[in-house]
């Protein structure tokens, strides 16, 4: 087996006593003090995550906007303003999801695309093979670090580290900033359901930023374990678990990221047909009172298996198990009673509409 890749913060994690695991070929911290502790820190105060394994691509040049419009499903017209950000998926001709992405409009004729670590090579090949000659690309993943700062007190911490006259970027925008003397790109985005930021900086500056953030007693280092429980409580889909090439954005509950009315894009006709006919299966949330649902467990309805758990975990906020699953559309309705086969036991569950957890700092900030 190949040596695991390391982020610029690898040594910091080891120093902090993190438990390191193989995640998509990367040596990543799954937890430091404990998943539930870290989860609570993000819901109540601030947690920081090293997500430098994620891929960063720059797409720029005269035809960049038109070319990206053909590749992603959402409408770049929504981020015409410099500094704004867009969540989108990228599909093949059949509407199969190649990846989910955040596209930041970082400059005139320039976009920063952040993609899943596990999809870096696939995405790069797909994007570059679908670009005309007047569009340039750069894979900046290796020299770029990404640190997520998430929680109701994230703004307070970031503002204390920032330069004089700092104006925080608005939700779903990105701006240049200086944090503790380091030049960074500061995005008001995240994957936890809390208010917060994602800091994009040069790999060589990552340790300095990380340590500056940890100098505040309110800040807890968090691993991928808490990242997963936090995102699942919000019902945010995870590539590889809740969606893949075999699923389409309509079935995955991401129809809102598909702008059928914009100019033509890859997968448009297939997705339009699925939307018209209605998807056969839909991704739903399921809650259980007992046990912890995990990926692959069978979901039963009136005695027959109707699907499998896509994502499943224990919700530290709610104190019970939560899951997602693709179910036939006719029963993919909130309130439907289902049964989960949790190994030897059959446990009662109920279909719900995510988010599982409401009233986070983000839901109050967004309203």
């Amino acid at each position: 087996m190949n040596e695991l890749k390391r982020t610029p913060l690898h040594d910091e994690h080891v120093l902090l006593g993190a438990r390191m695991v193989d995640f998509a070929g990367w040596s990543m911290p799954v937890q430091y003090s404990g998943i539930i502790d870290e989860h609570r820190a993000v819901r109540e105060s601030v947690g920081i995550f090293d997500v430098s394994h994620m891929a960063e691509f720059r797409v720029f040049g005269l035809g960049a906007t038109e070319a990206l419009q053909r590749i992603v499903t959402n409408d770049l017209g929504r981020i015409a303003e410099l500094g704004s950000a867009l969540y989108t998926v990228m599909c093949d001709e059949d509407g199969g999801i190649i990846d989910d992405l955040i596209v930041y409009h970082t400059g005139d004729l320039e976009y920063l695309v952040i993609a899943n670590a596990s999809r870096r090579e696939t995405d790069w090949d797909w994007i570059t093979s679908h670009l005309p000659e007047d569009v340039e690309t750069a894979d900046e993943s290796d020299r770029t670090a990404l640190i997520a700062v998430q929680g109701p007190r994230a703004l307070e911490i970031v503002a204390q580290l920032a330069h004089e006259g700092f104006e925080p970027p608005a939700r779903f925008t990105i701006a240049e900033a200086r944090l503790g003397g380091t030049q960074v790109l500061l995005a008001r985005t995240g994957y936890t359901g809390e208010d917060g930021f994602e800091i994009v900086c040069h790999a060589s500056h990552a340790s300095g930023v990380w340590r500056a953030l940890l100098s505040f007693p309110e800040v807890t280092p968090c691993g991928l374990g808490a990242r997963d429980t936090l995102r699942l409580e919000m019902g945010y889909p995870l590539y590889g678990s809740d969606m893949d090439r075999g699923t389409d954005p309509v079935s995955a509950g991401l129809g809102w990221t598909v702008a059928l009315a914009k100019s033509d894009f890859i997968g448009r006709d297939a997705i339009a047909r699925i939307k018209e006919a209605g998807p056969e299966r839909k991704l739903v949330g399921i809650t259980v009172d007992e046990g912890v649902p995990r990926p692959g467990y069978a979901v039963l309805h009136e005695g027959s298996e109707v699907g499998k758990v896509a994502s499943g975990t224990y919700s530290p906020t709610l104190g019970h198990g939560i899951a997602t699953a693709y179910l036939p559309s006719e029963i993919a309705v909130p309130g439907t009673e289902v049964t989960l086969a949790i190994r030897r036991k059959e446990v009662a569950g109920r279909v719900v509409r995510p988010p599982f957890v409401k009233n986070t700092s983000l839901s109050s900030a967004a309203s």
Partner: protein
Amino acid sequence: MYPKDLKYDKEHEWVKVEGDVVTIGISHFAQDQLGEVVYVDLPSVGDAVTAGETFGEIESVKSVSELFSPVTGEIIEVNDGLSDAPEVVNEDPYGDGWMIKVSLGDTAELDELMAAEEYEAFVSEEA
């Protein structure tokens, strides 16, 4: 971390012997590897357990593990407190985090188990 008055098996359970009754739980190493315990599924009083076979399950946020009985016998007491407070397994694995008490069938099985020093050496190889 590994009390001297207990015996241990390779599945990381501990056993405390008092006459022909043994108390069973999981070791410090096991609870640390699991992380925060969120669910413990235990059998009922009167159920039989067999050495080397599963008697329950323990779940953390990230993973699920089976619990293996180090001995053969009949369950005479179950720690019901763990259903409401499973985190006690992390906080006090050798005390309030105990799981079941078993009336032994064959005390010779205890000879197969490891003493604290042996178990510590076994764990340091596994870690």
